[in-house]
């Protein structure tokens, strides 16, 4: 984490662009240099870089992510508000993706080479090659603009309107789930196919177990390992990678916040967000390792 923090700090300051200048030059106007100098002074950007670095590390160690250069809003507070939204989006997408991808993957593996498998695999490769902004825009076009079933995008809090919240969540979650379910589908299909060839499956069948229990207990459970790894990796990437979906659906999550912070060169915000994303990535991998143990008793030893 220290390495990440330091790299982040350095890269941000090497990238050209001055936050004070940018804040005062919205709409293509020229800020007066005196005002820019004044703002730089006020924002603490005139101090030596090393002093800024020391202060930054000290703050991070105390768990304080600092305040935005733009409006002195606490970064920690904003991350705390937006992170759950992105997590919720990713989680909803993951649940949808597993609910679709896993059963279909098993189905395709069991019916390998037959019509169902071929159809599913074709759809899957089609889905995989569709970028989210195309899927998202199509969904908006069909369901919001033409059918007018759902709003074109946006967000309301759980506390204000739970039903409305789910409506807003649905389209971005589906958009991510379409791509993610394909990944899960393909991984499941491959893993199940491999497991089906194993000796213990043959043994189970030989001793007269019904096909259902064989599939459930001996095949799918053993095939879950790689599927889970892939899912976790993808979810980790999605933490910072839902930008396009958040953008297309105006979902006020963490990635959109990160992009805006980078555009405005809001150093404390970028640092705070990336650090939190890194921390979660590490935690996610830990969680997956623990889940392995639950799924596969052999790992526990």
């Amino acid at each position, binding site marked *: 984490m220290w390495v990440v923090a330091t790299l982040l700090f350095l890269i941000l300051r090497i*990238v*050209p*662009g*001055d936050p004070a*200048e*940018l*804040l*005062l*030059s*919205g*709409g*293509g*106007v*020229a*800020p*007066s240099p*005196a*005002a820019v100098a*004044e*703002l730089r002074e*006020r924002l603490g950007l005139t101090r030596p870089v090393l002093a800024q670095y020391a202060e930054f590390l000290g703050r991070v160690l105390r768990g304080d992510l600092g305040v935005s250069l*733009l*409006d*002195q*809003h606490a970064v920690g507070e*904003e991350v705390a508000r*937006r992170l759950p939204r992105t997590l919720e989006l990713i989680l909803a997408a993951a649940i949808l993706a597993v*609910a679709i991808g896993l*059963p*279909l993957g098993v*189905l395709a593996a069991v019916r390998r080479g037959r019509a*169902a498998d071929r159809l599913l695999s074709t759809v899957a490769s089609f889905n995989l090659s569709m970028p989210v902004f195309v899927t998202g*825009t199509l969904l*908006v076009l069909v*369901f*919001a*603009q033409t059918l*007018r*079933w*759902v*709003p*074109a*995008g*946006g967000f309301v809090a759980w506390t204000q*309107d739970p*039903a*409305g919240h*789910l*409506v807003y969540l*649905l389209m971005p979650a589906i958009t991510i789930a379409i791509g993610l379910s394909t990944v899960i589908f393909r991984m499941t299909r491959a893993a199940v196919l491999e497991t089906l060839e194993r000796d213990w499956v043959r043994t189970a069948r030989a001793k007269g177990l019904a096909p259902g229990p064989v599939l459930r207990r001996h095949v799918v459970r053993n095939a879950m390992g790689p599927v889970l790894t892939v899912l976790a990796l993808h979810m980790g990437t999605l933490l910072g990678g839902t930008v396009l979906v958040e*953008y*297309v*659906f*105006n979902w*006020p999550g963490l990635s*959109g*916040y990160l992009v*805006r912070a980078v*555009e*405005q060169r809001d150093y404390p915000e970028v640092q705070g967000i990336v650090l939190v994303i890194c921390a979660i990535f590490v935690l996610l991998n830990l969680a997956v390792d623990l889940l392995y143990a639950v799924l596969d008793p052999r790992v526990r030893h």
Partner: protein
Amino acid sequence: MKRRTFLTGSATTVLAASALPRRAGAQAKTRLVFALSSYPPSIRPWQNTGTAAATVKLAIYRGLLGYDPKGEVRGELAESWKRENDRTWIFTLKSGIRFQDGEPVNAEAVKYSFDQMLGDKSTAYLKGQYAALVDKLEPVNARTVRFVLKEPSATFGYLLASVHSPIISPKSSEANAVGAGPYRLGDVERGTRLDLEAFDGFHRKSRPKTKSLRFIAYADENLRVAALRAGDVDIIEYVPWQSMESIEKNPKLALDAVDGPFMYLVFNTQQGPFTNAKLRQAVAYAIRRDDIVKAAFFGRGSVLGGLPIPKGSPFYDPELANYWKTDPARVKSLLAEAGMPNGFKAALLSTAQYGMHKDTAEVVQQSLAAVGVQVELQLPDWATRVALGNKGQYDFAVMGTVGDFNDPDSLTGFVGSGQTASYNRSFGYGNAKVDDLLAKGRAELDPAKRKQIYRQAERLALDDAAMVGLAWRSQGYAMQKSVKGFKNMPGFLTFYSGLTLEDAEAV
């Protein structure tokens, strides 16, 4: 297979059920929803933080003067004003009006606001201009203020009408300013939306017409249009040019567009090829401006072959406005005169972050390739482009902006010298004669004489090719047909359209 049918089935039910609550909410007309192109970085009263912020600021804060929907200066907090002599202006405030915190709007509040704007630590956008112009500000009595200027000024009224010089309550500070505008700030979801509630003590009776306003930021232009079509929002700003035609054809929607902002080229006159005015001229005569209007703005705009003086302005001169026409023969002779008959190489700075900047740069590149000038495009992100522009690290660059007000004095910001380097004017350019004329024009109060002065200044700046105009671009707002009263203001004032939100209602 069964599970799959179940899944699609349940998804449809959820979708259908979810449509109900939204429909009911869309009927309410006590609230107008306005889609902004970006979330305002800050709505501090005197800082210029962009056009989206300006729209919100105009709903919350007001200054001594403002504009009516036709773009004429009118009294806002001031009821009347007169010039005592060349340098002294007297303002009488409306009687009995209050700020949103209940404090009276009086001469002390005006003094307080100007003291803050001109303070040492102030980052006010107009600080420099006011500091250079205002000698004394004296409260005469509770309702009367006297401004004594250092020199006569034809543009002082425009400065006071600027969105960047509102008067705030003396009980508030810049960080948490309380204004006297038609709406007060309510619930805010940072980065997403701002809710505003009508201020019942607004100085114009029976305004605002709508009880509450909601600003939602839709950064994606296509989603902004989709939200309008879906009925999620009532008004959108920055209508993308490619969507203008379909909005015009939609019976439920209305488009209100004016030619306001403009695109132009700035040059590095300190180093590189464009230190030579002949080469700047050659570029000006080489560009196919029609193609820019077509390629970057889908035909929504018009060519700008001179300096940016809007067409409706009394200072508009058709001859000077079309000074540069595409003329390959002229380019050839200019190149030969500059000693480069076979063309030269130059780098053009623009940004890939905004399509209109990139598309404009590409047309410029092609136009110049046709006359043997090889242009290499530099397309960093906006932040980098601004920094490079301010430091003068470029040969020439594409820019797009508006003037501060519909008066030729706006040209000072683009062709005047003695100001510090900025990405929105040519780096290092200065012509003492132009400066003299601009100063003379500012201090001259007779409109006929001002016209003559600015003609001369324009001619000089055009000869120098201090900046090269490319195109006016159409700036559009779109709204539901049911929305009445909201209007796109003319020319450079298009970004002041937020003023008319006080008249807006959905019927």
